[in-house]
């Protein structure tokens, strides 16, 4: 297996790409009792239009299929449910769907081999019937309802709606009650056969493993599959401009919440990590815990806690999000805008830059505390074509000048949007 290493944090990752295209990453962690394994397919809510490699058929699927499929994978032909089987072994099993991937995982302290067998087995054996698909619609309907009541989720969806007109990232991951009503076994099988091919999947394990031994164990339990050509995914053309500047809804919340967004242009794959680090430093400098602006907002009662911020970036979308509760989101927004303008004009303060850089270094190292965090990070990064250790290794290449260029380039007024949830 190929070994990649981070000397700074004393961790290694073993990587192997099998003949059928499956990528396997193993990160050994000595002395931990917990073991974590996650198997992901590069199939998320944005993949709703594609060409099947085998038949050449062009397929449009209803919103929410990737997530629906995730729910249904656990069901087995013999009437058992793999989630129950794993739980019965004391194994904490789960699955989730994001914009760009779906993942099946478990964490355990004992019974790992039995868990592995079950995981490999159920992900390779879909079983969809009219009856079990119908039944799931009720459960997912309730899940959608839960999100309907979640102000944070609505806030996020509206921010995306402001930034993008057609981009499939706008689609609610679970779909809508209406869209999932159209799902049937045929659609699920089509998607399964296309996206659950080893060449479109990545498996990551982290824990006290002997890498070669685990690799062999996994290989011996994989079903033979014919090679498959590349899946052609069809997305609407990229939009340069934002869709609308502002969106506000009323919900049952005590104080308004807001999410400010900056739509970004696409970044070369090779530069994404570096840019990500720079954006994190910039956001911390604008309104992080030690910033003047945050202190001011806190004193004036405009902010109760440091805003959350995030930089989401892949082939299809790229944007910065800043969100918080505030009784006067307009004022906070103005403060942020002024701060950005000032920093763009005067450049970044060198001392503060170093201080924040240290903080971000610590943040990245801390990610290596838990086997689950490590495995999920490697999976999500691999799906985006990024190597996780690069965050630690490229850290030093992010200079003040580089960050200043990003600041000018990304935080442009015309790319700014604002989503607000107001109390009823």
């Amino acid at each position, binding site marked *: 297996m190929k070994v990649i290493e981070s000397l*700074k*944090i*004393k961790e290694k990752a073993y990587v192997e790409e099998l003949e059928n295209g499956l990528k396997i990453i193993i990160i050994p962690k000595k*002395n*931990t*009792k*917990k073991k974590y394994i996650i198997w992901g397919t590069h199939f998320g809510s944005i993949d709703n239009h594609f060409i099947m490699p085998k038949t050449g058929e062009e397929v449009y699927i209803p919103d929410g299929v990737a997530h629906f499929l995730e729910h249904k994978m656990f069901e087995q032909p013999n009437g058992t*449910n793999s*989630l*129950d089987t794993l*739980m*019965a*072994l*004391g*194994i*904490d099993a789960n699955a989730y769907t994001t914009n760009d991937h779906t993942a099946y995982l478990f964490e*355990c*302290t*004992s*019974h790992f081999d039995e868990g592995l067998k079950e995981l490999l087995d159920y992900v390779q054996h879909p079983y969809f019937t009219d009856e079990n698909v119908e*039944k799931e619609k009720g*459960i997912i309907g*309730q*899940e959608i*309802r*839960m999100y*309907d*009541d979640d*102000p944070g989720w609505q806030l996020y969806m509206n921010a995306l709606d402001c930034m993008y007109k057609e981009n499939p990232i706008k689609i609610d991951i679970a779909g809508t009650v209406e869209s999932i009503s159209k799902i049937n076994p045929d659609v699920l099988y089509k998607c399964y056969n296309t996206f659950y091919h080893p060449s479109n999947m990545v498996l990551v394990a982290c824990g006290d493993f002997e890498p070669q031994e685990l690799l062999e164990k996994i290989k011996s339990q994989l079903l033979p599959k014919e090679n498959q050509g590349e899946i052609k995914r069809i997305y609407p053309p990229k939009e340069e401009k934002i869709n609308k500047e502002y969106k506000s809804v009323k*919900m*049952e*919340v*005590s*104080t308004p919440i807001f999410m400010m967004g900056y739509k970004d242009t696409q970044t070369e794959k090779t530069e994404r990590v570096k840019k990500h680090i720079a954006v994190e430093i910039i956001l911390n400098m604008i309104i*992080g*815990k*030690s*910033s*003047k602006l945050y*202190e001011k907002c*806190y*004193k004036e*009662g405009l902010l*109760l806690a440091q805003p959350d911020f995030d930089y989401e970036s892949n082939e299809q979308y790229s944007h910065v999000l800043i969100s918080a*509760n505030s*009784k006067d989101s307009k004022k906070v927004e103005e403060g942020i805008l002024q701060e950005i303008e000032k920093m763009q004009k005067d450049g970044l303060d060198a001392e503060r830059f170093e*201080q*924040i850089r*240290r*903080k*971000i*270094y*610590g*943040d990245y*190292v*801390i990610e*290596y*505390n*838990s086997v689950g965090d490590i495995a999920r990070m490697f999976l999500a990064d691999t799906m985006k074509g990024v190597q996780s250790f690069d965050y630690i290794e490229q850290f030093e290449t992010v200079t003040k000048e580089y960050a200043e260029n990003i600041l000018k380039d990304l935080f442009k007024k015309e790319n700014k949007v604002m989503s607000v949830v107001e109390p*009823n």
Partner: protein
Amino acid sequence: MNYEKQEIKQGITLHQIQTENYKTNLYAIFIATPLKRENVTLDALISAVLRRGTKNLPSQEQISKKLEMMYGASFNCGIEKTGDNHILKFYLEALSEEFLPKPEELIKESLGILLDLSFNPYTENGAFKAEYVEGEKQNLKQIIEAKIDQKDRYAYDRCTEEMFKGKPYGLYKYGYVEDLESITPESLYKYYQELIATAKIDIFCSGRLKDKNVKEIIEQNENMKNLKERKPNYIINNETTEAKEVTKANEQDKTQKSMDTNEKIEGKENNEIKAKNENVVTESMQIAQGKLVIGLDVNETKENSRFIASVYNAILGGGANSKLFQNVREKNSLAYTANSGYIRVKNVIFIRCGIEIDNYEKALDTIKEQLEDMKNGNFTDEDIKSSKELILASIEAITEEQDTEITYYYGQELADRFVTVEEYAEKIKDVKREQIIDFAKNVTINTIYFLRD
């Protein structure tokens, strides 16, 4: 064993957990005091005011700068309700010295800041800084009002409040808006001084601590030197102290009684306990999904019944194999979430479901059926086995996260019940089917709370 407990002075205890599984060290200070209606808001406000500044680092900006220079050390504080105690919690997490790009004495620095934040607040004229108190009063008001935002949490808190009406555990941990106005920087500071002079104080350190003389570092600390020994004022809660009263007593009276540390409520024999009428509470809000929370009394106060309770709870609503998940969600598609949780310190169980509002009756019937099933032994040996596995896995996981391990040992400290993680696992394995059925017969519905549109 990697856990060691030492007394610094009477009422102040140091707990060290030696582990090399992490890139970080975690330090925590817990200040415990009895939950009282007249003090809850003060407690909550103090934890907020303290993080604003210390004598050495008088503003938040300076605290944050300092922490960032320490490679992004993070400080966190908050307030929790554990049994009938209100706990002020202070945490500091920092990289282990081993993973720093260049050597620094981070342990001493970390403990210094944490003790400073807890016991050396910034003051002006013998009181907290007025600006900080005013600001935090406003913030706390918003936090208290925000309890409606998270619907399932709100429903859970409301059910707890109804179930423990007039008792300490029914209090809201952030306190009450109507208390805020009369609090002054002086009155708050006076209360704070009294608090740190009488409360139970526990200090936890977890991580790479070998040969680091943590005890000495703490003993040498000026703030620690200033704290006097004390007979700590707090309440011990465990399954043997939590007998359920047969009738609802005068609320005022009850509050007084359970607040006195020396006067424990007498345990009552099981046969004295008659099924109370279920207390049904319905509340309306603009929501799409109904939240159903059911509070169950456990009328069993035998020593070690907590282990049986854990298994009972896991079978009822612990995981995907549980009766609630299987019957409420999987078989009947009535809910997306359906689970239950055992609150050991109060010896009660809460069932929580998110349901379609029109399905209320049906969901309630299905849940009641499950409770009956438990009494009648309608669960399989497989159910027992998988439930035990679920609990055992969570026990194994205790030592896999620093804060979980700290919380585990602190829970034992407060409950005055010490079992090692290994013993805990053995006790769970020993639970028998008959014990679960007997236990089930002592479980009764106290409160049904439904949040609907």
